[in-house]
């Protein structure tokens, strides 16, 4: 049904159906910590961390078109900053998050300054070197990170229970999603996305390229720093080995598989990558029928890689492309819109320097 403005407006029944499905989804998410066995509760918290990291990656990869292969550095900076604040400075738990967000922003701004001069894959390679430098050098300075022994990051009494901590993490994901939604709706958000499409055109519209690029890095760094603080308190200990290059690569994978540029897609991508190893393991242990009998410990990475390749080949826009109809319907649009195929967005790594 079309309103007078030409915009689609769902019928009253359609409205009820959408509210119903959304409500069910929210209830399902909230029931998760109660539904699954207690040993896996921390995996839910990890999924929340990955969702926030994916949203952080999305600001750079999806909105700004910059590729980062060094996000493990931001996560680590946030985690150690939070640990140091809680354990060494004896400040309250939430101060850890504040400090993590600030140091994450600082770490990202330093990289953003480089991004003003370099673009595309040149920047991507610098982010790799940056990540390696953070892991091998910064995270091994004993005075601030505890060196190989690691840095504690104890939870407060209120969040001692794993399920409660999972709810706390869910709350942060909700806040970050809201932030992301507001970001894309503002002038700054539109300016950032204009940079992705064409920097020169954006400049000709009077958009201050340097300022908005740095802003995108700051926003991404703040989110990843917060994710680091969440991550630190899952196991309540952080060590430098947690933040290698393969983690950065996983972060990029989950953003692309989720569908760069789409917040619901990338968040699901993050969740998927957080739970997939456990899911494959559990499927193998519990189902003794054909496809699952193939899964052995050594086969897991191969299976995951094949699934990943199939997804990319058939849906280059990732999960967001697979769910395009559903996501549009849930956001009170028509199920079948005039845009039949959501074009994959984001990424300027191939832009020739």
């Amino acid at each position: 049904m079309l309103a007078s403005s030409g915009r689609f407006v769902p019928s009253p029944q359609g409205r009820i159906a959408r509210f119903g499905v959304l409500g069910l989804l929210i209830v399902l998410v909230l029931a998760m910590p109660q539904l699954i066995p207690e040993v896996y509760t921390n995996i839910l918290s990890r999924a929340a961390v990955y969702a926030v990291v994916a949203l952080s990656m999305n600001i750079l990869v999806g909105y700004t078109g910059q590729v980062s292969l060094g996000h493990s550095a931001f996560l680590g900076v946030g985690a150690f900053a939070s640990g140091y604040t809680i354990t060494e400075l004896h400040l309250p738990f939430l101060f850890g998050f504040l400090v993590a967000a600030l140091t994450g922003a600082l770490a990202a701004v330093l990289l953003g300054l480089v991004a003003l001069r370099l673009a595309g894959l040149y920047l991507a390679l610098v982010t790799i070197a940056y990540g390696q430098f953070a892991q091998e050098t910064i995270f091994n300075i004993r005075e601030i990170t505890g060196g190989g022994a690691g840095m504690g990051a104890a939870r407060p009494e209120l969040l001692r229970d794993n399920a409660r901590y999972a709810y706390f993490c869910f709350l942060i994901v909700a806040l970050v999603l809201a932030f992301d939604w507001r970001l894309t709706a503002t002038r700054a958000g539109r300016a950032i996305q204009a940079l992705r499409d064409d920097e020169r055109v954006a400049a000709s519209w009077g958009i201050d390229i340097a300022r908005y690029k740095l802003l995108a890095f700051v926003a991404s760094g703040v989110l990843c720093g917060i994710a680091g603080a969440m991550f630190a308190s899952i196991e309540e200990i952080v060590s430098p080995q947690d933040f290698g290059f393969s983690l950065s690569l996983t972060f990029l994978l989950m953003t692309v598989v989720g569908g760069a540029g789409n917040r619901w897609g990338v968040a699901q991508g993050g969740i998927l990558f957080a739970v997939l190893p456990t899911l494959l393991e559990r499927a193998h242990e519990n189902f003794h029928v054909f496809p699952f009998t193939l899964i052995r410990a050594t086969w897991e990475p191969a299976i995951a890689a094949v699934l990943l390749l199939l997804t990319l080949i058939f849906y280059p826009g990732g999960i967001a492309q697979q769910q395009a109809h559903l996501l549009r319907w849930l956001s009170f649009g028509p199920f079948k819109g005039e845009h039949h195929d959501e074009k994959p967005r984001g990424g300027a790594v191939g832009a020739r320097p």
Partner: protein
Amino acid sequence: MGFVFRTIVFGLQAGAIYALVALGIALVYKATGILNFAQGEFGTVAAYVGFMVLAGGVSAEATDSKGRLVLATIVAVLVGAVLGVLVNVVVIRRLASASPVTSLVATAAVTTLLASVQVIIFEARARRFPRYVDGGFELPIANVNVSWHTIAILVVLGGVAASLAVFFRTPYGIALLATAQEPFAAELQGVPVGLMRTIAWAGAGALGALGGMLGAGVFANLQPGLMTGSFLIPAFTGAVLGGIGSLVGSAVGGLVVGLTVALANQVVRTLDLDIPGPPQIAVLAVLLGVLLVRPSGLLGNRV
């Protein structure tokens, strides 16, 4: 004096392999604009095929016969080329309309797949791997042992760089350059763009295989994911440092990264400093220093 020579010897030892891998990365980038994260594993897979030729099976030990090693190299290079073409046809071509970052991620997935298949077939343990030339000689001034294997790698690197330089003077090479710079215009000139890209991938696979056979010799050991774990990231860094648009630049960049790492390690060892991760600091510093002054790398031209 000894310090300088030691640094150069250690630097070239690692840098020569970085340079070989970097050449493959630059070749694919030049022809297709894709950053190929599977370049390392082309080498490891090819080296495992070479290992099977040497050992006559999956679980046996490799022989030391040099004749067999030459045969193994030929087979490995062919397999590497086929692997490169396969990745192009099965994965990369289908992603032509997607954003380049999707292709990058896809090649990373190929790496995971290839490395885990190696674990499935050959188990996660190291296998003894022979070198083309054994032994070494003592460099008199520096008190440092130079292995003949390092010399062999440098010779191969020089040969490969020279033949690529010659190739790019031939009509085929020029067609490949045209494909890279302006595929549409090249197509109008009658250049078979698809075929040229396939040739580039085959070349990268073959180069990767050479790198794998020589790289496994460096440690005299072959294990799953070897080329990615030990050489891929320095090679990428080298390619960008030297200028990924230039093949010579990429090779030079690979050597520079090797020398930088060696220098950082030597300085820290000589002065007995307590700094964590000296190579990482040095590589980041050199990379930033070079790119901020010359954003397209040492020998790269602005396109």
